[in-house]
């Protein structure tokens, strides 16, 4: 075990897999000569050469589409989206091609393409540059959708992605890049998709989240414990597709209260699926409706004070927990 940042965990996963498997390559805008806007690919062009570290034009559809073609021929391309906001222009290549070609070919091709990049609100990046994409992608069968909340998961799940045979949308939290955490040293350490985990044990209420909001939830849980003696169990979903809610069900069976935390707009957001599934499955265990914490239902404003109002904060999680416990 060693302490590493989320950013380095991602970087290491790529480097280790590129060392291990010559079929892994990476492409993206300004990942080579420029060394990456978040420096995740720093030094990689020098190490692996331009055939494996490809600086692309500004052409996200082109990047995603060519990567799908490479994957169909047996390579393992990683596409770094400078931010996931830009991948919207590649939506057709991802949702209509990467996600479906195995199916409509009757299973004749593997499509081991990994599309990764940061998402979520930064500091004053405004409406076009602050979005998250879990529900956008996870509605579509044919892809894995991943949203790691810790350095260990970031590394372990990226390795799973790079050893798999299917398309993976790998949603990184830009705000977590600097966060540190323990990461196993074993070069074969992987974290499987579709296995959620209990990030904090507790008995009074279940908080379900993922990505950056998982970290927020953990902070809220500590405050709740310290200030109000409320012990929250926090579930980290890790993957959105496949979605493993078993630990959440088990937890709710114990706590009978549940809060779901997501960063972005509530309507038709990821929290809706989580809430609906939990209610469907453990309805009789619930002593209160599942609460959802979400961002304000507006395009992200630039002004810092408005931006802060638009994004969920610890207090929002705490308030939701108290609503769920009828302690408001």
């Amino acid at each position: 075990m060693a302490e590493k940042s989320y950013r380095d965990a991602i970087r290491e996963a790529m480097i280790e897999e590129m060392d291990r498997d010559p079929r892994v390559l990476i492409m993206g805008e300004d990942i080579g000569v420029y060394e990456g806007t978040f420096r995740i690919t720093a030094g990689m062009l020098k190490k692996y050469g331009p055939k494996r570290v490809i600086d692309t034009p500004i052409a996200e559809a082109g990047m995603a589409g060519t990567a799908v073609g490479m994957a169909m021929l047996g390579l393992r391309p990683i596409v770094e989206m400078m931010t996931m906001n830009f991948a919207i222009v590649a939506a057709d290549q991802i949702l209509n091609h990467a996600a479906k070609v195995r199916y409509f070919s009757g299973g004749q091709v593997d499509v081991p393409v990994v599309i990764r990049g940061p998402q979520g609100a930064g500091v004053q990046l405004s409406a076009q540059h602050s979005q998250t994409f879990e529900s956008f992608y996870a509605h579509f069968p044919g892809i894995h959708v991943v949203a790691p909340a810790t350095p260990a998961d970031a590394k372990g799940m990226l390795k799973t992605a790079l050893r798999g045979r299917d398309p993976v949308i790998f949603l990184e939290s830009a705000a977590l890049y600097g966060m540190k955490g323990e990461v196993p040293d074993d070069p074969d350490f992987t974290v499987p998709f579709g296995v959620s985990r209990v990030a904090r044990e507790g008995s009074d209420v279940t908080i379900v989240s993922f990505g950056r909001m998982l970290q927020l939830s953990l902070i809220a849980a500590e405050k709740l414990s310290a200030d109000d003696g409320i012990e929250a169990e926090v579930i980290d979903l890790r993957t959105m597709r496949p979605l493993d809610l078993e630990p959440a069900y088990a937890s709710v069976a114990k706590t009978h209260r549940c809060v779901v935390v997501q960063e972005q707009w509530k309507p038709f957001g990821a929290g809706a699926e989580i809430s609906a599934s939990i209610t469907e499955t453990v309805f009789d265990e619930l002593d209160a409706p599942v609460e959802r914490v979400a961002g304000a239902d507006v395009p992200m404003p630039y002004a810092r004070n408005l931006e802060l109002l638009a994004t969920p904060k610890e207090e929002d999680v705490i308030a939701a927990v108290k609503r769920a416990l009828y302690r408001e």
Partner: protein
Amino acid sequence: MAKQKASTTAATLDAPCGPEWTDILRQMIFIRRFEEATEREFRRGKIGGYLHVYIGQEAVASGILTALRKDDIVFAGYRDHAHTLVLGSDPGKIMAELFGKATGLSKGKGGSMHLFDVEHGFYGGYGIVGGHLTLATGAAYALKYDGTDRVCLCYFGDGAMNIGSFHEAMNMAGLWGNQGLCPIIFVIENNGYAMGTSIERHSALTDLSARVRAYNIPTEKVDGQDIFAVRGVADRVVRQVRETGRPYCIEAITYRFSGHGAADVMQPYRSKEEVEQHKHRDPILILRNRLSEVCGLTDDDVKEMEAWADEEVAKALKFAEESPTPKRDELYDDVMSNG
């Protein structure tokens, strides 16, 4: 048909009376009969969804695909029956796919628009106009990444040249090609129309190849109705792309005799006279006449070919008809690699 592919790849322009050319004629007649059968079966309700046939354009598939090596690969749009037939896919399996049967080329999951036959180098069969161009470009890169001298062929229509992904694919192919890393041949199936919209109405400049050259990709127009011309260009271009690893674009000027799809009956965008006029330049007729004039092909020879083709089509239909529909559980297969 697989046997034919092998033999036709030996056809050369130096031996215009070689047996390969009669094989190609036979193949084109077969494609025509096959397509006519699919139109009939669509009307009979045996084939569903969208159905786009290749009637009138046969030389563009036959003339280029027969110039490939067996390990080369091909991508196309939704008008894809001819391509698979030339590449050697089993006609029975193709027809079964159109019938939505478990024995189909894509297990009945893709249908007419999504034929797929990796074994014969066919990587699909795509329904979003222009969506496969980037895939083909990446695939070509992969061929070179692996150090092979295989080439990739990518077919698309004139209408597909107006969508963004066309442009992104061209630029990336051009860039990678500048380093000898993109052995791809783009084939424009320029049949003059995108559904009901003629070129003058869908493209600001009707010299479509100009946009390809703007990405440092050489282009060449060819009469897509004359298979000798097509094959001549293809032989040279395939060799060149194989050697250089740089992209090339063939613009085949052709014409579709049938409607855009099976639903396009009225065809308000063109006159009957226009269609009839183009039928004088039927690619099968052109090849047949050439072989009659120069090589002594007789009417009886052609009749024999037609009879053979009808028989083969009948076999394919029978196979499709008698094949089972996919089993219920197959619904959930092939979504992901693990089931």
